[in-house]
């Protein structure tokens, strides 16, 4: 298949850019946990470089290290030298996958099933979603749990079962028309990405996003049955599949006719903005992918860019704090915009969360692959939320949303009772405005 050593074929200057100054160490959740260099960005980069230099074999231990890394990219924000850790991290995971040093039968099967089968087929993913929904809404899940059915499943999956997201009753395609026009058109035409997890678990947030866009004079184009953006694949070392999904994604939109492609999931957005790099070798897609990167905008970023309209009514919430999705703040550097949006809502007091940009431990499928470290991070986050002492927390990524909800649910008498998203609060405020004026949505 591909070349013998992916890290070797990487542009060496990316590896060299690290001058081992150590400024990233205090921001790295795994280093801070163990205080061992190999668990730090600087250490991991040195391991990658040793592989590229032929000084180190690709071993199971190396694979473990790459999967112990959260991919939270806090190191990238801290790095004075501008090291592109995201690219190194994806290449290194692809490297260990290619070397097949970690090929337990079970791991292989579940990886294959999820990455190669389920997340490659939007219809299948939705079908599974439907089945899960029925299963959850009929109470069958509780019954199965009582019958100890899950005793039959592999332990890693068993642990996961209670964390399965609550599947929404309707998916985005039922809630959003392929083309929706605003009442007052400001001349913007934007594409809306519905995502996969977002679509299954939080289709209402997609609806909220469309509403917020409409309220700000944007025409919204939402292609049907979109596929996964491929971030899960890229972060788990399946770069070929990630490329395939990127091509499909680009093909779903008529790029020239759109001012922006809007994403509302931090993790997806961070990956979506790198299609240019992912497809730079592709003779047909390289140019389109570059154009694509320029147009992808996180919803908060876009709203602030077009000077979104401040709502005149409140969102029915009095106090809120904000947890930053790693890939939104470190990956996309969208930091102030969600706060500006929250602060624009009348009657809503915004309170900073201590360590708001410290990873919550969700990190893609990290909570499945590294349950222990994930739990430690979640505990730290839940404690910080207690410090903030506010009843509602907003965040901007479905993974973080689920993780926080799970963490708070497991912790009775916690002051924070609700997880939501900035766009949802903004949409609620616009709706409240409308009903005050006696009109409908949008």
């Amino acid at each position: 298949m591909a070349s013998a050593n992916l890290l070797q074929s990487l542009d060496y200057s990316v590896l060299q850019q690290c001058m081992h100054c150590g400024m990233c160490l205090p921001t790295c959740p795994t280093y801070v946990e163990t205080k061992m260099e190999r668990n730090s960005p600087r250490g991991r980069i040195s391991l990658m470089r040793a592989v590229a230099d032929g000084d180190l074999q690709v071993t199971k231990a190396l694979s473990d290290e790459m999967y112990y890394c959260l991919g939270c990219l806090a190191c990238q924000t801290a790095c004075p030298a501008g090291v592109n850790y995201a690219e190194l991290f994806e290449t290194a995971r692809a490297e260990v996958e290619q070397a097949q040093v970690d090929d337990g039968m079970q791991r292989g099967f579940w990886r294959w099933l999820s990455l190669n089968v389920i997340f490659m087929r939007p219809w299948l993913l939705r079908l599974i979603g439907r089945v899960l929904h029925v299963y959850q809404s009929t109470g069958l899940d509780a019954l199965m749990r009582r019958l100890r059915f899950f005793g039959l499943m592999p332990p890693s999956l068993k642990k996961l079962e209670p964390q399965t997201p609550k599947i929404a009753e309707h998916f985005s395609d039922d809630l959003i028309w392929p083309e929706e026009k605003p009442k007052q058109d400001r001349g913007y035409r934007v594409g809306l990405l519905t995502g996969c997890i977002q679509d299954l678990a939080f289709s209402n947030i997609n609806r909220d996003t469309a509403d917020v866009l409409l309220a700000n004079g944007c025409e919204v184009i939402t292609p049907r049955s979109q596929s996964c953006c491929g971030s899960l694949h890229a972060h788990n070392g399946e770069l070929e599949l990630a490329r395939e999904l990127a091509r499909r994604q680009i093909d779903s939109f008529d790029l020239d006719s759109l001012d922006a492609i809007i994403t509302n999931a931090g993790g997806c957005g961070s990956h979506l903005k790198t299609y240019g790099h992912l497809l730079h070798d592709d003779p047909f897609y390289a140019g389109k992918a570059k154009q694509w990167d320029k147009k992808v905008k996180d919803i908060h970023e876009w709203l602030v860019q077009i000077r979104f309209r401040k709502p005149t009514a409140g969102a029915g919430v009095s106090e809120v704090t904000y947890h930053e999705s790693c890939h939104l703040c470190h990956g996309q550097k969208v930091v102030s915009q969600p706060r500006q949006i929250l602060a624009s809502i009348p009657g809503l007091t915004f309170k900073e969360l201590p360590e708001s940009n410290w990873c919550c431990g969700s990190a893609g499928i990290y909570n499945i692959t590294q349950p222990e470290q994930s739990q430690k991070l979640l505990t730290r986050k839940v404690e910080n939320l207690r410090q903030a002492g506010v009843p509602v927390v907003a965040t901007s990524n479905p993974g973080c949303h689920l993780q926080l909800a799970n963490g708070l649910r497991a912790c009775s008498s916690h002051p924070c009772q609700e997880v939501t998203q900035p766009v949802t609060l903004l949409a609620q405020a616009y709706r409240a405005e409308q009903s005050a004026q006696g009109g409908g949505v949008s």
Partner: protein
Amino acid sequence: MNKIEARLIQSLNEILSPDRVLTSDEDLVPYSFDGTAALKQRPGAVVFPLTAEEVSECVLLARRNNVPVVTRGSGTGLSGGSVPLDGCLVICLVKMDKLIEVDEKNLTLRAQSGVITKEIDDACAKVGLFYPPDPGSMKISTIGGNVAENSGGLRGLKYGVTRDYVMGFEVVLPDGTLTFLGNKCVKDVAGYSMKDIFIGSEGTLGIITEVILKVLPRPKARKTMLALYDSMEDAAKTISAIIAAKIIPCTLEFLDRVTVQCVEDYAKIGLPTDVEALVLMETDGHPVVVEEEAAQMMALAKANGARDVRAAADEAEGARLAAARRNAFSALARVRPTTILEDVTVPRSELAAMVAFIDAVAKKHKLQIGTFGHLGDGNLHPTFLTNERDHEEMHRIELALEEIVEETIRVGGTVTGEHGVGLAKKSFLKRQLGEGSYELMRSIKKALDPQGLLNPGKIFD
């Protein structure tokens, strides 16, 4: 050098516990270097003691087996001090990270060596106290590393360096002895000042396990200003004028043209990129005094040819202006794959000439050198932007560095103002010190560590 034997690893496992003894390739590769560019050597094993007694036992074991020991804090050193030797034992102190006591009655603080420098100042800030030494690496460097390197920072002009705050410490000597040097007394003249020999000894004389630091009341006010110049001479003249006016600002830092351009490219602060020098000035203390001094400094800057002087309205803006200086190294590091940060210091009167000299050397050897540093104390950081894989260019850097060092010594300067000698500056040391003091240093090392156990080959052979 002998590689570490299995038998020895077994003993280390017994002294500590297996999870605190690293020996696999994947564990050791990340300990092959510190913050110094282009120096690399894999150790034989890395251990993480939690107490001074464990450190002592590890040292004794290494001594009995003739295995050299390299002490490591966070490995941010810029002279190769914690770069391992082939097959050595690295004793890493980052897990000895307990802050033991903040003594408000005596204005002292006691901490294990592995505590991060910034955590020390943070702990002080909570009770209105202040730990002034602030190396650029303070977010991650350890206090033990700071003492071993006698680190300085942006506030050095007014507050001095680490040495000025060390009142005492616990140290493990090369023969395993555990002893305490110094105490909490402000005045103490009992015998030789033994602790001073260990401060700045770069891990060659003993392993410091716990420190007592002097701390100060936190200054109530601070004001930050930025002055822009069309000539380096004018910047230097301003500094002299400020000192002559009997003002000791806490910070007087500067960036040269190359550095300003890089900072602006990277941080987009809104600096003009055609200036020859940018000077960051800061004064702290009583609010009334701060106001008065700030006004005087701004007037002196203008009188001495500053093109523009800006004062920060508040702390936040001050931090933004200071970011220009704090970002200097980062901004330069982004330009080329390899960044070599140098550390020459000259008497303050020689500053302007030295900066011009460095500029000329860069032109002569066709190199990219950005210079920034501490104008107030004469400490310059000429920073070479290069690619370590370009051997021809690396050779030209060697030549350029040689000329810069020659000139530094000629004007009565020193080859390192804060980063230490380690491996990087070893070859220059004798030239600067001269035979007498060089041999004195060596004889001290021999007296304390006859076996050459601790960090052999660092500072001198």
